[in-house]
């Protein structure tokens, strides 16, 4: 029952994703990994495509992963799955939310959750870095990685990362433009 699995997995992702798109990446990655729906580099490509196409990353990646795992119907079901918790929760909670919004307990819960979200987004960067900075088919084993440090690092990737970071932080380049530029750089370096 791949359809049911897709629906439940993406419902779980929708239910536990706070803080928008990037914070969801570790969550989606876990689900994809445990079901073997996509490879790590395929998933990173989806993040890139989701960033370049309109719409929320959550929806984009749900559609893409669902399509890859089980065709057009799979994409539809995964997308409905990721939207269902929002739909249900907003209908139930919105009426009562304002009463509790300023309640100290609610504030303290978010005091604890907010920094964790930052940690999750950072973890997403580490996860993507593994596929971006290491050569393909690298064994993720710490002692192996330390011994073969120079051999496994993809220096072109590190270079493009450094250029991108400077462009984004210093020159505030538009993210979509940055993706286009980095794609061209990737093509030029390889040729």
């Amino acid at each position, binding site marked *: 029952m791949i359809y049911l699995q897709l629906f439940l997995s993406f419902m779980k992702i929708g239910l536990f994703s706070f803080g928008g798109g990037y914070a969801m990446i570790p969550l989606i990655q876990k689900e994809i990994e445990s079901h073997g729906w996509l490879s790590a580099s395929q998933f990173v490509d989806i993040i*890139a495509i989701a960033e370049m*196409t309109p719409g929320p990353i959550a929806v984009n990646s749900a559609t893409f992963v669902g399509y890859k795992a089980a065709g057009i119907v799979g994409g539809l079901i995964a*997308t409905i799955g990721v939207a269902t918790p929002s739909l249900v*929760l907003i209908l139930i909670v*919105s009426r009562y939310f304002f009463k509790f919004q300023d309640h100290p307990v609610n504030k303290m819960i978010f005091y604890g959750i907010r*920094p964790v*979200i930052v940690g999750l987004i950072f*973890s997403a960067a580490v996860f993507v870095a593994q596929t971006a900075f290491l050569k393909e088919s690298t064994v993720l084993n710490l002692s192996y990685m330390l011994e073969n440090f120079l051999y496994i690092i993809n220096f072109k990737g590190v270079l493009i990362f450094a250029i991108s970071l400077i462009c984004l932080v210093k020159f505030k380049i538009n993210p979509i433009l940055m993706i286009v530029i980095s794609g061209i750089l990737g093509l030029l*370096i390889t040729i």
Partner: protein
Amino acid sequence: MKTKSHLKLLIELFATFFKIGSFTFGGGYAMIPLIEREVVENKKWVTSDEVIDVFAVAQSMPGAIAINSSTFIGYKIAGKKGALVATAGVILPSLLIITLIAMFFSKVQDNPMVKAVFSGIRPAIVALILTAAIKVSKTSIVDKIGLLLAVLAVVLVVVFDVQAIVVILGGAAVGLGIYYLFPLKAARILSDGGHKD
């Protein structure tokens, strides 16, 4: 007559949110100004004060901000049907576009040119996500406890392979724990506002 105008409203809701879904790149936060322009300025369905409350709810509830805001605004304007129609509208463009791309991408992903392009894009995505983390940290990490929680979350997820859900619940538990066990500390945190906005 009433049902006819209701139907017209639902169609208008769908069209508006379809438009919003079609033109926002970069996810939820990028959608906020567009939603504001459409539903407050153009359609005058909600006031600008109301829409700020909607975004507050959308951001503090689980789920994509775009979906949450669309559901909420749809509900405010036309009840449960409105919520459903607005949500379907905001999702549909992504669904169509991504399905087309996915069909196409499966055919070209092994092409050496495409591979080269994506080998350049992946490192840029790392930089993009890192930039987002830095940006969010500025408002979300306000003290040493916050910094500790963020570092702990990274270590647990990256090194110990702990599920993100567990880490989120853990963060909530820490907040609650401080509230019930260290009321003085909690009072100090709350009087500082809890977070910088």
